[in-house]
């Protein structure tokens, strides 16, 4: 008698595709028939395992979840994703360099004196002076000056008041120009 069925041949027999020569062995071998019957019974048992059907609302939610997850991806294949991991840290590094360059402006004696001078200037209300201002830059300065009105303190948080911020971020020339503009706005006679 030929050799008994191999495991893969038992599966072929289960599928009904066992070659004729091997089917002949099956006809003669009780052990192989018993094995095939047992495997078939186990398959029948496996069929008892069902997947519980989820709510009908679940299926559309899968599409929504996938769409939301893919919203961050620009295109299939990830062509944009190849440089995205580099862009974020590069932008962050550029921002950090810019912030450091601004913050590292040395506070020499002149800066200290200028900051002190700004602090000593009376914070006169200049809201009325903003009316009819044509120069956008001057209008911005006037608006900034209005912010240092002691009657309306601003919660500027860790930075402190506007004067301290100006001392930290503006160059000496810029601080002097701002001071001049503020003085001119304060000294302008009311219309």
């Amino acid at each position, binding site marked *: 008698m030929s050799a008994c069925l*191999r*495991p*893969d041949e*038992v*599966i*072929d*027999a*289960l*599928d*009904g*595709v066992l070659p004729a020569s091997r*089917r002949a062995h*099956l*006809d003669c071998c009780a052990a192989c*028939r*018993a*094995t*095939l*019957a*047992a*495997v*078939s*019974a*186990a*398959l*029948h*048992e*496996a*069929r*008892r*395992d*069902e*997947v*519980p059907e*989820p709510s009908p609302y*679940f*299926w559309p939610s*899968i*599409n929504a*979840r*996938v*769409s939301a*997850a*893919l919203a961050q*991806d620009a*295109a*299939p*294949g*990830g*062509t944009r*994703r190849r440089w995205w991991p580099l862009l974020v840290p590069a932008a962050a590094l550029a921002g950090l360099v810019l912030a450091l360059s601004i913050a590292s402006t040395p506070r020499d004696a002149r800066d200290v004196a200028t900051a002190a001078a700004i602090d000593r200037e009376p914070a006169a209300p200049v809201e009325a002076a903003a009316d009819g201002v044509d120069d956008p830059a001057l209008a911005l300065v006037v608006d900034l000056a209005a912010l240092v009105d002691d009657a309306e303190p601003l919660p500027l948080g860790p930075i402190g008041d506007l004067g301290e911020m100006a001392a930290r971020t503006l160059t000496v020339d810029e601080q002097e120009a701002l001071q001049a503009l503020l003085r001119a706005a304060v000294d302008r006679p009311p219309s």
Partner: protein
Amino acid sequence: MRDHASIAPWPLPGAPAMTAASPGAAEADDDLALVDAALSGQPEAFDRLVTRHRRAVYHVCYRFVRNHEDAADLTQDTFVRAWRALGSFRRQARFSTWLHRIAVNVSLNKVSVKTPGTEPLDPEALVDVGAAAPGDRLAADERARLVREAIDALPPRQRSALILRTYHELSHQEVARLVGTSVGAVKANVFHALANLRRRLGGAL
């Protein structure tokens, strides 16, 4: 002499469809058209692919993790990974087969980090001689639970081969391509999976 030909071929005739059947040739071609459309910048095409295959993917994932929440997460993860890798889909297999592969991989990764399951089943403990009549629903549910636990206890390759072959009706060639092995190895894994199943449920081959 027993007529071995009377043993039902795979799948068992009359057996209820456990999940979405494998797509026919026409649907497979349509899948490729949708893939092309998605690659050309039409996201709605990929959404149609999700709609078409979400049930089958969910069923694959569920059979590994056995709970709805994890299966839902893995289903989402499968389609997200498919989207990102869509450009590398080489069309050597059907899109559904390729998708199944991703689902199996994410599911196996998930179960590999889970804590070990229950103790190995004692075959003698499984047979409850005091059970009600075979038609009793409670006994049927208990039996189904035992089957689930026995399947869950299978080694990964046997479990994967059994799931894909039994419930998703993938051919042996598709399963072999999906898990990266030979057709003969797939058949052997299925055989040993069923043998282990039989052993755990109180019988022996």
